[in-house]
């Protein structure tokens, strides 16, 4: 589903590469943790999958397509197959919960009837039944992250990328978010989650890919966060 072949990414103006010869292969339906210290290149790897950035060399395949070579106008189509959530939720404060979720469908031209049908179901799925009319600021951090997950998943993407989704949440709430991501993974969606939350990684016992200064230093089928901790 996602495949990196000797990927190097050097940001303009910096000498050390953010990713330095990364080769990994993530199968369809897998749940993968991307771990490593701050600045090790986790976010960069996710940005390459979204084509928010391009690899300096090497190849990035998503669903069998080499996306570095993808024409600019095809990038939106790629992104419609990928849901993304971030540490800071990135909800629109002027829209209600339901509107935030619906927005992701509206802007890709989904018919209104379809939106009306899909949004409540997705809110139920993420455990926000009845909260559709609330404003984001009225919700707890965990609930806001659920809205963000609903928005990322409402289009039923093949891939869900999560960049430190529990970074702003307490451990109990984080565990709930992890259960939700696991549930989404259970529907066949490939989930890649960047994190440096040891507790969660140790708890989940999923595949762990560890980066250090842009290099893969570990790739374990069902690992803990790291030996050194």
């Amino acid at each position, binding site marked *: 589903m996602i495949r990196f072949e000797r990927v190097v990414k050097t940001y303009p103006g910096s000498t050390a590469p953010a990713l330095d010869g990364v080769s990994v292969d993530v199968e369809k339906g897998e749940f993968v943790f991307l771990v490593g210290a701050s600045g090790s290149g986790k976010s960069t790897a996710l940005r390459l999958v979204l084509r928010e950035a391009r690899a300096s060399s090497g190849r990035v395949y998503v669903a069998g397509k080499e996306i570095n070579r993808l024409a600019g106008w095809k990038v*939106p189509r790629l*992104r*419609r197959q990928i849901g993304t959530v971030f540490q800071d939720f*990135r909800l629109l404060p002027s829209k209600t919960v339901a509107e935030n979720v619906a927005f992701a469908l*509206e*802007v890709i*031209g989904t018919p209104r009837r379809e939106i009306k049908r899909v949004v409540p179901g997705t809110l139920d799925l993420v455990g926000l039944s009845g909260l559709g009319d609330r404003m984001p600021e009225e919700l707890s951090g965990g609930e806001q992250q659920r809205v963000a997950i609903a928005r990322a998943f409402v289009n039923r993407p093949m891939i869900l990328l999560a960049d430190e989704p529990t970074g702003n949440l307490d451990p109990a709430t984080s565990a709930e978010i992890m259960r939700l991501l696991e549930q989404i993974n259970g529907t066949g969606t490939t989930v890649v989650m960047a994190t440096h939350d040891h507790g969660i990684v140790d708890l989940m016992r999923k595949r762990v890919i560890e980066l250090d200064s842009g290099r893969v230093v570990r790739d374990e089928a069902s690992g803990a966060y790291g030996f050194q901790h």
Partner: protein
Amino acid sequence: MRYVFSNLGQGLRRNLSMHLAVILTLFVSLALVGAGVLVKRQADAAAEQWGNELQITAFLCREDDPVKRCLGAVDSAQKAAITKVVKNNPEVASFYFESQETAYQKAQKLFDPKLFQGDQPVLTPADFRESIWITLKNPDQFQGITSAVLGLDGVSSVKDQRDVVQPILSGMRVMQVASLGVAVFLVVAALMLVANTIRLAAFARRKEIAIMRLVGASGLYISLPFLLEALFTAIVGVALAGGALAAGMWFGVHDRLRDYIGFIPWIGLDDFLVALVIIAIVGPVVTLLPTLLLTRKYIKV
């Protein structure tokens, strides 16, 4: 689509003062562009009517010519002699004859139609003179040809129309250059205002734009609100400028000047339409071009 249109109103209101600034600048600059076009067409029409700016006209004697030099209408021998002199003169680039009938038709466009109507019209072709229109090689060298032709039999008078025409024409050219010159400055100002408006709008909507990009909205979809806003301001600007030009033509040319200065063929509806088409092209280009370039930059997908 609903999102796009609800955004148009929202975007216009949010940035009302900027949009007003764009519209007003666009209005004034387009009005000046249009005015420049109209003045140019006026000058062209006048220049054509009076002959090329470089032309000298030799009027030939007509029947009952009041000019003393004439002894009845010019005859063909005289005409041949005149032609020979003109043809052999080194100052002459080219020349052509204009018949009495042509002179009569030209006059019909200028004077009160009543003069040409009825069983006994005040003016008939016989009241006009046949003429030779001479284009000079060098506009400053006309003494030789003027005096040579003036001495010939059958020549009623020689008119160097540049004496009369030149000041009016150069006045019009100055107006044309001035209005277009100021218009260029204002168009540049409008371009910069549009660019600034977009920068502000893109900044105000940066969260929305980031999410649209993330979930895979197309570049066109994201920039559509900006393009619609640009189109809207252009349409308003063009409408205002067109209205101002129409008013200017109606009250200026139609009601006043035409009465005072009747000997020039004044510009009319078709000239106005040409000016309108030009500003209807310039206006949207001025707003859409920076919008297209900048949305690509700020909203790069």
